[in-house]
């Protein structure tokens, strides 16, 4: 233990870290952006609800889980019947089933768990949110069991080489779909009547109602939009990792929440930026944490980065990167 040779060997690892390889760096960046675009979709749901109700919907992560579970049930059933459908179409059928189910769920959660508490102290809906999470997790466990559910190998397995790194068809599809969904959401919020009503309600529900806006409907629509995005994100995550699990919504939800806070909660562009950044930070962090700590911490510490980022943001810039208001409550 005390021999000079041992110390030298340990020292060498500190002094001469592996040189930065561009292809590995690029690969981590690609993986991070893919993951980050999924985080962004989920983060949008947190931020939209917060923007309007100043409520953190902690059940939102579970909606991604339900989205994954429902779509996997449909996909597995379709694969089981042996129908002659292209894999992408089967997956799409899964998504198109999960989206309305999750929208209904989001609508129901708001009606049952949050609306009756609209004028209650802020802690009350936070507690019901945790209650709803527990109910959804346990409900999913009862229906689908405690085991990991595999995503059937129906998706294209093609991959492409970019500067020594690979990007798979699934990764390309995930990024393109999330970008299109985010663009569609921005259009909706900026250009449509519903979007204007949402922004007006976020600024002042009372004045919005004086304009003839049915604030309750706007709130329901907000929950349903966020849940639709979460459903898609849930399917993406399970397709990406090749599995789903009744507990998967917890960590995904917390990370997406961290992404929303990083971007500035309540700010849509912030949620997208925060999601992408968090994905990249996590991926690069996991890739290089071994080198940076001389092998003391390994890439299984990947999940730590989201919370590290969350703490840093809350300490140094509580309003987030693009936020104006300080999150001083909830």
């Amino acid at each position, binding site marked *: 233990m005390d021999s000079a040779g041992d110390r030298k060997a340990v020292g060498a690892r500190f002094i001469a870290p592996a040189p930065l390889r561009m292809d590995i760096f690029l690969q981590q960046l690609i993986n991070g952006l893919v993951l980050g675009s999924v985080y962004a979709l989920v983060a949008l749901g947190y931020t939209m609800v917060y923007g309007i109700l100043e409520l953190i919907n902690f059940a939102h992560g579970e909606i991604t889980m339900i989205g994954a579970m429902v779509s996997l049930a449909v996909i597995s059933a379709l694969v089981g019947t042996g129908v002659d459908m292209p894999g992408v179409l089967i997956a799409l059928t899964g998504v198109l089933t999960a989206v309305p189910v999750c929208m209904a769920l989001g609508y129901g959660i708001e009606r049952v768990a949050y609306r009756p508490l609209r004028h209650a102290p802020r802690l009350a809906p936070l507690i019901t949110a945790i209650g709803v999470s527990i109910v959804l997790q346990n409900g999913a466990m009862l229906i689908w069991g405690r085991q990991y559910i595999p995503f059937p190998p129906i998706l294209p397995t093609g991959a492409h080489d970019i500067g020594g790194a690979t990007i798979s068809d699934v990764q390309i599809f995930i990024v393109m779909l999330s970008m299109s969904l985010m663009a569609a959401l921005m259009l909706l919020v900026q250009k449509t*009547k519903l979007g*204007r*009503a949402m922004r*007006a309600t976020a600024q002042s529900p009372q*004045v919005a*109602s*004086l*304009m*003839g*806006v049915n604030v309750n409907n706007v709130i329901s629509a907000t929950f349903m939009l966020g849940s639709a995005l979460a459903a898609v994100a849930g399917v993406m995550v399970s397709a990406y990792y090749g599995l789903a699990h009744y507990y998967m919504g917890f960590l995904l939800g917390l990370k997406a929440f961290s992404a929303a806070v990083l971007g500035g909660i309540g700010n849509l562009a912030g949620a997208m930026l925060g999601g992408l950044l968090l994905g990249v930070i996590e991926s690069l962090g996991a890739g290089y944490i071994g080198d940076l700590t001389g092998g003391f911490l390994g890439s299984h510490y990947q999940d730590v980065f989201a919370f590290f980022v969350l703490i840093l943001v809350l300490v140094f810039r509580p309003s987030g990167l693009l936020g104006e208001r300080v999150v001083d409550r909830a």
Partner: protein
Amino acid sequence: MSLLELKQFAVSYGGIKAVKGVDLQIERGELVCLIGANGAGKSTLLKALCGLLPVAHGSVLYDGKAITHQPAHLIARCGLALVPEGRGIFGRMSVGENLDMGGYSRTDRAGIKNDLERVFALFPRLAERCKQQAGTLSGGEQQMLAMGRALMSQPRLLLLDEPSMGLAPLMVEKIFTTIRAIAQEGVTILLVEQNAKRALEISQRGYVMESGTIALTDAAEKLLTNAQVRHAYLGE
């Protein structure tokens, strides 16, 4: 039949009664003002009338229909528009979008376009600043925007809560002139004001509110010469 009729109208905050059984009527085409000291209950009355606060007792008849316990968005859709105290503009939206919000419940595109022209004619400043963020406007411009936005809903009854508050004298004059112009176009107006003198000068009738009740009501010119009113509200 009056356009608006409040009967024994009462509003409370928790257990505290802020408006205690008010009777008030407004005929079609009238410009009526409601004056009273700070804290008399004027804003509370307007808010409850529009459905922003629950009505504790009494009733609101609008155009002969009871709208007493209707939600705010449905009351707004009947043609009742409140320009709230403090203006309540959407600061993170453009001036144009604020005006669009005023026409939110309407579907007649041609009519909306027409009313937008009317608002721009009334407040040319708003046309110049159409693309600007509303939060960056001056206080007077924000008041114009709030009034223009209310007009975009094609109101039959316009409720104005202290429109001249916090404005420079020149802007106050502009606001009062505009209120009179809007009234002359046939919009019925209930004007709540701290500036009792100017309010009474442009109104046909007035109500004087004191700690939640109507202390006095009369034709505006009579109130202007009433010794009690002159002493308490006109500072003479």
